[in-house]
């Protein structure tokens, strides 16, 4: 069995339902048809304009860090950040960067990436997302 056959057999599940898996994974938002406000969870009505029609839209996969913190409680420090993805703020963990104030900078360019969280007892692989410094 070669590697690509193996990949095809593995079932995958995203860490959250707004992460869409595929060749180029992306984040998906519910966008208000009336005012274009975006939400990562469901809304009965838009909290901005009260419209009740939404369309699923793809969120830009690269952006700029507008805020961050480095959480140092617990065994492994991690970087929590807000990334402005072309006007849509996204909450995420920054990965692929040293969790130090010297390496993480406000205004740095980052892009979406995914990684495996491992498989469950039925062989389903969980895929999570993070943002990583842009190439």
């Amino acid at each position: 069995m070669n590697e690509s056959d193996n990949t095809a057999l593995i079932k995958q599940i995203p860490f959250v339902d707004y992460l869409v898996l595929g060749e180029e994974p992306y984040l998906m938002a519910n966008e208000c048809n009336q005012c274009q406000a975006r939400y990562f969870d469901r809304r009965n009505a838009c909290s901005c304009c009260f419209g009740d029609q939404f369309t699923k839209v793809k969120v830009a996969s690269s952006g700029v860090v507008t805020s961050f913190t480095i959480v140092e409680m617990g065994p492994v420090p991690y970087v929590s950040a807000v990334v402005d993805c072309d006007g849509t703020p996204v909450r995420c963990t920054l990965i692929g960067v040293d969790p130090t104030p010297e390496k993480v900078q406000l205004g740095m360019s980052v892009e979406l990436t995914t990684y495996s969280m491992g498989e469950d007892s039925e062989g389903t692989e969980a895929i999570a997302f993070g943002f990583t410094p842009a190439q």
Partner: protein
Amino acid sequence: MGSEDIWIIGSNMTKFGKHPEKDVVDLASEASVAALRDAEMTMSDIGVLGVGNLMNAGAGIGQQLQKQIGQTGVPVFNVSNACATGATALRVAIMAVKAGEADVGMAVGVEKLAGAGLLGQRGPKPQSETWEPSGRFGAIGSTEGRIGTNIMPGVFAQVGMEYGHKYGGTSFELFARISEKNHAHSTLNPLAAYQKRFTLDEIMNDVMIAYPNTRPMCSGNCDGAAAMIVVNDEKKKSMPAEVQKRAIKISASVLTSDPWEEGCQILPDVNTLTRNAATQAYEQAGIGPEDLDLVELHDCFATAELVHYDNLMLCEQGGAVDFFESGAPWRDGTKPVNVSGGLQSKGHPIAATGIANIHEIVMHLRGEAGDRQIEGAKVGLAHVIGLGSACGVHILEKAA
């Protein structure tokens, strides 16, 4: 406003800190009885009771308090509104008195939090053999650390960092110096949970919780209660001269929630609703930020204090760093902020906080703040914010 004016005639807070020998009802009772004594009243005078407690929101603490100090059958409103719970209880009492449903209202906020640890963190889900999506986002595990953070020191760190991104000028050291100020102030407040002065080095080299907030830059979980008695103009005039002399006017009482903002869907926006509350409060009081002699604002973390200088319009928009650098918010500065020591040293027993910060202003306006008295204080503002969000702003004035 005339007869519509509302006055504080009784006010008290317990010492904040660890009270292992007292339960929630004991603490609430201690503050309530002292506030009643301060107003020369008993429970028989109280027409409405607003009681705030967050950690036992379903327990009917208001009724338990009545059983402990006096049951008269008056309406009790048990409220919970995150860190603005105390201010919300006071708003309830004020609204009832303003509406003419009662002449005298009492508001109480109480919390036991000593040793509660980090708030906002959820315990691990029970382990399952397979990935099971659950919750609003269909998450298959805890989002903490996977999708940013929910812990309060981290959330509020991002609030301060966001300000830095927008306007520049912030640094780890700047935030630490805000904490240095509040801890220095606390040495004069015997009711503060911590009265230790820290050097800047000690603050910066302490345990890092969530960059840039080290441990002393975070508010302390502790136990405490605060209580306040409010009356209308007519009732005030019927009180003994000594009580009237010490009455403090509530010139503005405002509670706001978040209006829609794109960003507040993912990172709580503590700015817009605070600015809105402040704008409404200044308008209600007919007073501007330049008239304030002191301010108690919600410094749950050092990173939060900075943004509220701006939100409360103590400085120009974008000018919070310069405002701090000018020395203005120190107790000997032009606009003393958190002379009580703030939440970072006074402590933050959540539901008590929103009344305790108003109590601090009352003490200064009465000229009863002891060693930490801001001389000649006539006007003060108290601000509190609960994530989610709810913001309370009260402006108080010494009687003319």
